[in-house]
Each structure stands twice: as structure tokens, then as C-alpha cells.
């Protein structure tokens, strides 16, 4: 029998606000040490009252607009109670009864995925176990950082659809400035079941909690599919509705600790927070502040002369297109900028194993300016780029120190050519004996002699002339 996957996603995304959801503490991004960004409100001290961060509401509404949701113009906050040391007040403020956005859709390939709701809630803190003293320590920096939870309908039918959706969501959220979606700041709970193809009844569901890597999510879904189908067909186990966790080392899911009784969160409306009314005027303001979509950006780049494939790559990533827009605005030639970002910068990022574009737009702009003006060679430019990525050096100072200067006179080039010929008698003999390839080694020695300076075409021309004398 053929089986069909049925998947629903709950995606938690940290909002890009300057402060926490109900107090003026900076987010954990601003923290250096544990419990740096903590005040009596977000650490659950008695006496404090929550005051809602308006920007968080606006960002959640933006997310709703992007996902074609209906915006609830009357929305409320509720309390969810449970005891855990990372939750200092023993309740989380969330939206249970009247979430801010409902009933949206996202196109994933040919299919439409329904969005049940988007609600705003505060994050919990972090527990750190100290093995040395066998104690648990709490860090409240993340406590009360605003999140939205985007709850999809059980509309996904494959792990590929899930990943396509998540990538699309991530790029859209970054674009609209709703979330940075940094490593770990986008977390998913995956609800998954299988059923015989062509049937409507939902199977027994398992929920895989708290995953952030797309590749791991895909593997976890594939694993669960096999587990569910085996359980049904080969009776390998009795499926029960449960929460599970994905073990990245063992490459399989495990049931999470089952409490004796099901958790009862005892939701009720938060009496300290008045209902939020998003009137037509405010909604119109939020709508007006929506940025261009990735598609719109891509089209703009094509019009600037960027090849459509490159334009699409640039436009799909907020940090790449942010860098591109800034450097182009500094007067650099768009195609040149695209090439530097997509080829040289991305190669540096792969080399260093980082996900951030670790360079100030001003510095990238200056490197491109020097190369395009013929002040330094592209090879030298790449070296400067590497030095900026690794040590954030000053571009002009570094060029001076390294003696990078593409405009060397012919006399200096000729001297380097002669020195290279003298130093490589074997290669010279090979070349003269008809091995054209040997030229490369002598040319390389020449460029080293010139410290990467000089116009390679001029160097090559002088070199062949000298050898053929």
C-alpha cells in the first residue's frame, strides 16, 4: 500500500525588536554575559506589570500580511501556566483566545499551504547545567524576547514541501525585517502522521519538538515516515500520540519524557493587558511600511543588468541583497558588485565556515573601487578581501603595507621577468623545448616577484617576448 505523509508545522521565530515583549530590556542579542539583559519584569519579580511592545505587534501583523492572513483587529494576550526554572513567573504570556493573525495561505510550488494562525508570545530563558558543581544555572537574557509562532494547517505532503516552505518563510521574514532568522532563532515543531493514499482520516500523530536545521528537519521527517509506515504495516510498534525529539547523533527520534498526566496549561486572559485594538488607520500604516518582496527585488536587479540567475540568488537572501544595495548606492557598478558578493565574498564565507557577510559595505565598496579603477589587481583585491574578513583591516592601509599597486612601470616588470627566467632554468629549458605549459610556472614566479602587482597581460607579453628572444 502507498502512504501519504501529513505534516503540520509550528514555526517559532524571534522578532527583530529593540527590546523585549513587555519590558524595555534589550534582547539577548545585546547580552555579553548571562543575565545581562534582565530587569524585575522579565525575571518575574513581584510588583512589575507588563507593558506591550508596540513594534512586536506591528511585526506580527506584517508577518500576517505576508502570509495572506486575516488580521484580528481585536487581539488579546493570555497566560499559560507551567512550572519550569527557565520561566521565572511560572507563566508565559501568549495568545490563546484571540491570536493576532488567522487563516492565511502560502504557495509552495504548485500547492497552497494553509496558515491556521500566527500568535505572539514571549520566549523562555535558558538552563545551563554545570557538571563541575552538579547544579543548574538559569540565564534570563532570552526570557520575554518576543516570538511569533506561525501555525500551519496539516497541509504538507512531503519533506521537500516542508523545506521549500521554511526557506521561503525565512527569506520573506528577513526581507520584511520581521526576523533576522539567525541560527537557532527559527525553531520548528513538526506534527507528522501517515495515512493510506486516497484516504481522508488522519493517522496517529507524533510531534517532533524544537528543531532548527532544515537538513535535520528533512531527515527527521523521513525517519518518522518510515517508523510510522513500519508500525502500521509490520506492527513493529504501537503508535501513540506523543512528542518526540530528533537525536542528531543517532539519526532517529526518541519519545520525550512522558509526564504522568497530560500538561494542563490553565490558559486564561491576562488581566494586566488590555485587549489590543488594531484600528484601520494603524493597519494601513503597517501595510504601507511593507518592503518589496524577493521577486520584486530580483526583477529590479535584472533591470540593472544582473543575470537572472545571479539576481535570484542575491534577492533571496536578505544579507546579500542588503550588502548589494548598499555598495551599489555607494556608486559601484552593479555587475561588478554582484560578482564580488556572489563569487569572492561567498567563497571567503565558505572558507571560514561562517554565515555572516563579515565585511562593512564601505570596505567592500573601496576594494571594488580600487580594482575597477585598475589601482590594484583583482588578485590583490581578493587578498585584501580575505584580510578584511579575517582581521577587519583598513583597505587603503593594507594595500600600502603589502605594496599592492597595479600601476608598476615597465622597467620593474622587465626586471621581474628577467629575475624569474634566471631563477627557473629548468622551466625555461622545457618551454624552449616546446612545452608551452612550462610558461605558467615562470609566469607565476614573475607575479610573486611583483607581489601580485602589475597588469597580468603586460607581464605575460613581456615574458614571452623575453623568452623568445
Amino acid at each position: 500500500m502507498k502512504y501519504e505523509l501529513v505534516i503540520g508545522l509550528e514555526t517559532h521565530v524571534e522578532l527583530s525588536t529593540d527590546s523585549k515583549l513587555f519590558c524595555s530590556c534589550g534582547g539577548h542579542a545585546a547580552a555579553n554575559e548571562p543575565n545581562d539583559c534582565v530587569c524585575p519584569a522579565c525575571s518575574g519579580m513581584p510588583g512589575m506589570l507588563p507593558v506591550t511592545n508596540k513594534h512586536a505587534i506591528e511585526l506580527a501583523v506584517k508577518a500576517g500580511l505576508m502570509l495572506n492572513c486575516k488580521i484580528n483587529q481585536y487581539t488579546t494576550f493570555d497566560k499559560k501556566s507551567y512550572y519550569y526554572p527557565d520561566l521565572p513567573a511560572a507563566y508565559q504570556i501568549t495568545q490563546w483566545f484571540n491570536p493576532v493573525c488567522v487563516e492565511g495561505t502560502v504557495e509552495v510550488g504548485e500547492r497552497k499551504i494553509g496558515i491556521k494562525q500566527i500568535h505572539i508570545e514571549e520566549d523562555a530563558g535558558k538552563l545551563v547545567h554545570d557538571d563541575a558543581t552538579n547544579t543548574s544555572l538559569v540565564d534570563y537574557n532570552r526570557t520575554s524576547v518576543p516570538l511569533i509562532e506561525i501555525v500551519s494547517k496539516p497541509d504538507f505532503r512531503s519533506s521537500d514541501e516542508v523545506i521549500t516552505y521554511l526557506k521561503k518563510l525565512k527569506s520573506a521574514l528577513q526581507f520584511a525585517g520581521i526576523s533576522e532568522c539567525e541560527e537557532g532563532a527559527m525553531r520548528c515543531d513538526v506534527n507528522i502522521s501517515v495515512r493510506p493514499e486516497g484516504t481522508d482520516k488522519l493517522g496517529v500523530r507524533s510531534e517532533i519538538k524544537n528543531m532548527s536545521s532544515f537538513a535535520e528537519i528533512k531527515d527527521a521527517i523521513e525517519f518518522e515516515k518510515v517508523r510510522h509506515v513500519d508500525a502500521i504495516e509490520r506492527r513493529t510498534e504501537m503508535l501513540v500520540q506523543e512528542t518526540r525529539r530528533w537525536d542528531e547523533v543517532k539519526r532517529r527520534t526518541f519519545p520525550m519524557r512522558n509526564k504522568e498526566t497530560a500538561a494542563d496549561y490553565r490558559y486564561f486572559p491576562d488581566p494586566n493587558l488590555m485587549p489590543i485594538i488594531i484600528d484601520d488607520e494603524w493597519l494601513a500604516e503597517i501595510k504601507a511600511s511593507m518592503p518589496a518582496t524577493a521577486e520584486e527585488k530580483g526583477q529590479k536587479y535584472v533591470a540593472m543588468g544582473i543575470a537572472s540567475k545571479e539576481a535570484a540568488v542575491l534577492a533571496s537572501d536578505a544579507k546579500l541583497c542588503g550588502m548589494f544595495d548598499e555598495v551599489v548606492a555607494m556608486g559601484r557598478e552593479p555587475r561588478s558588485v554582484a560578482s564580488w558578493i556572489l563569487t569572492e565574498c561567498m567563497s571567503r564565507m565558505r572558507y571560514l565556515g561562517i554565515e555572516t557577510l563579515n565585511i562593512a559595505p564601505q570596505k567592500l565598496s573601496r576594494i571594488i573601487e580600487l580594482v575597477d579603477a585598475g589601482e590594484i589587481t583583482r588578485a590583490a583585491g581578493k587578498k585584501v578581501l580575505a584580510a578584511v574578513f579575517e582581521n577587519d583591516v583598513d583597505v587603503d592601509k593594507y594595500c600600502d603595507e603589502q605594496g599592492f599597486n597595479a600601476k608598476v612601470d615597465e622597467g620593474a616588470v622587465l626586471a621581474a621577468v628577467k629575475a624569474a627566467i634566471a631563477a627557473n632554468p629548468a622551466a625555461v629549458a622545457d618551454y624552449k623545448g616546446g612545452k608551452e605549459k612550462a610558461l605558467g610556472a615562470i609566469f607565476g614566479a614573475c607575479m610573486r616577484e611583483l607581489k601580485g602587482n602589475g597588469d597580468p597581460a603586460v607581464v605575460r607579453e613581456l615574458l614571452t617576448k623575453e623568452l623568445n628572444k
Partner: protein
Amino acid sequence: MAKYITEINKNGNIAVDDTILVKDIPATAGSKMLENFVPLFSAEAVERVLAAGYTLSGKTAVGEFGLDLYGETGINDICAAASLVKEGSVKAALNVDLNGAPRRAAALEGVTFVKPTYGTVSRYGIIAAACSGEQIGVTAKNAATAAEVLAVIAGYDEKDGTSLKDANNIDYNSEAPAKGMKIALVRELYAAADAAVKAKIDAAAATYKAAGAEIEEISLQNLAEINTAWTILMSAETTNNLSRFDGVKYGYRTEKYKNIDELYVGSRTEAFGFLTKATIIYGSDVLSKGRYEDCYDKALRIRRKAVEALTELFAKYDALLMPAFSKAEYEFYPVENAFSKVYEESIFTAPASITGMPAVVSSGVQLVGDYFCDGKLIALAKALEKEEA
């Protein structure tokens, strides 16, 4: 002389109850749970009295978390603030009216307490229990003095999300004459009081009549329903607010625990008193799955009906006259009876608590009025006090 839990300044003129935070001064809320808790900031009301030039005398005892006059783990000094006011040690006291305790204390001690309209005095800086109903009020020897201090602490505060902008427009020093006013005497509540309390209500009614006001006896429908609904809301919110006291961050921690669950259970079992535990159990139940719709949600609907019913009454009457406490003298009872005793007594205080309407206790009687009519109630209390003097 009544004692302070913590004395701040011998010459101070304002006492503050122990559920109200004063920076660097211990705040126990009458609970062993918070016996070592020192707050990092002061309540907005405290900041305002200090800014107006008053000085704090000290922190006064409350029943645990202010749930009642009396709580076994606090100092058994019931009516502490009201007795200090009565003996003239201080000009006034700030008290949190969570479930009517300061109103009861004022009635028993024969002083004045004003519970202002909900949202007119910032709740920032009180050890919260029932956020949707509790209010800081003022205990003073007479209504004029209470009004003077109330005018200082009232007003909009952006730190409290339920604070009302209209709070800035109330005239607390109203001298509205009783003449021509219509006052409704609540029959069921009158009947529920003892003879001494009835006599005080009779005396108040006589004073108003003599001053040219009209007294009409009315029946207040659904009082029991209102009281139950309020008890549900109050207990549920208290349960939720007290869950932060778990022995992890501050306050009492048991010495006997091997894991986090034992730490929670041990700390809370050892540090909370009987009434608090009973309230927490009741409050957990009314919020639990399967019970929410029938209990908490229904209580919210009854609250709305109560607001409608009282608002309708206040279209006809200027104030409701009723007791604040069933007896003229306080009788101690075994702690095991605390929850039902408090429930029985809150029938007098629940209408103003659940609706957030203002209430003034003076000369042993309680007056309840429409939203923002605090000044009118204060003027009516002044009329009684004039008669007494």
C-alpha cells in the same frame, strides 16, 4: 501601640502595607515565602507620596498576600494599619484592597478607607494576587484626609497597562451635599449583618434622611452569584500570580529536595499558609481543562452582568449603602475554616471588587458608587463623619 513589621521612620506620617513595595525595605506580603525578600524598586503610589513630601513610617502587617485580615504565617496583627491610623500614629496608610480586607479593617476599627475606581491608582509595585480587581486604597481617620492622600497617589501611570487616562480628572475633594441624593440600601446585605452593624447602617440612613437625601431599600439580585464569580476570578488570578514563588529565584527554599519538583513542592508546602493553599487549589481547579468554561469563563460573564446591573442601578441611585463586614467585633476562627469564612464575608465586598467600582467605608458602613464617582462617595462619608463628630 500597633507594631510595624519593619519600621522605616519614627516620625513618618504614612504607613504602607507589606504587599506594597518600598525600595530596599523587606516586603513579605505576610508570607513566610517572602520573609527575606527585598524589592529593587518602589510602588508608583509610594513614589508619589514621597514626591509630595510625605514620609513613610513603616510597613504594616497583612494577612498572607492580603487574602484576608488574618493569615497564620504572617504576624497575627489584624487591622494593623487601621489601628495605627485610629491611634493617630500616622496621618494615613496605603493598603491593597485585594478581597476587601482593608474595608473590613476600617469597619472594625471605625476609621475610613477609600477603595478607588479600578485603574485610577497605579498597581505598579504591589505584590500582585488578583490583578483584575485589586487596588491600592487609603486608610485615614476621616474621609477628608483619605481624599487628600488619594489625590496624591491617583492618576495615570504608563507602567500599569490597566491605568486609565481619565484617572487624572477626578475631584476627590468634592463637597457635594447629601441633599437631593438617592441612596439605595441593599436589603440582603443588611439582613446578613449582626445587630451592631445593622444599628450603624440605621444611623447612617437616618443621617442621610436628615440631610435631605432619599433612602430606598432595594434588592440586589444575584449577590451569591457575584460573590462566587469574584471568588473564582480572585482565586484563579492569585494562583497564577503566586506560582512565581517557587523557591528558585528568591524567597523561601526548602532544605529537603533532591530534584526540581521536590524543590517546588517542598518550598511551597512549607512556606504557604492554609488559606493561601486553599485559594491556590481552588484557583487551579477553576482554570483546569474541562472546568474553565463552566467556572472561569462563566465568572467573566457574570462579571459583565454585574457591571451592567450596577451601572443600571447607578442611573437611578447615587450610592449603595451596605455593611462591609457581618460583625462589629472580629472573631478568630480555626484556619481550616478560613476559605469558607472569607467567602462568607466577601459577599459584602465582592460587588465593588468584581466591578472595580469605588467603595468607601466610614463610620462602620460601606458606600459603593459608580465608576469615577469616588468624590461623591467621599462627600457622603464626610456627611456621616460630621454627624459622628
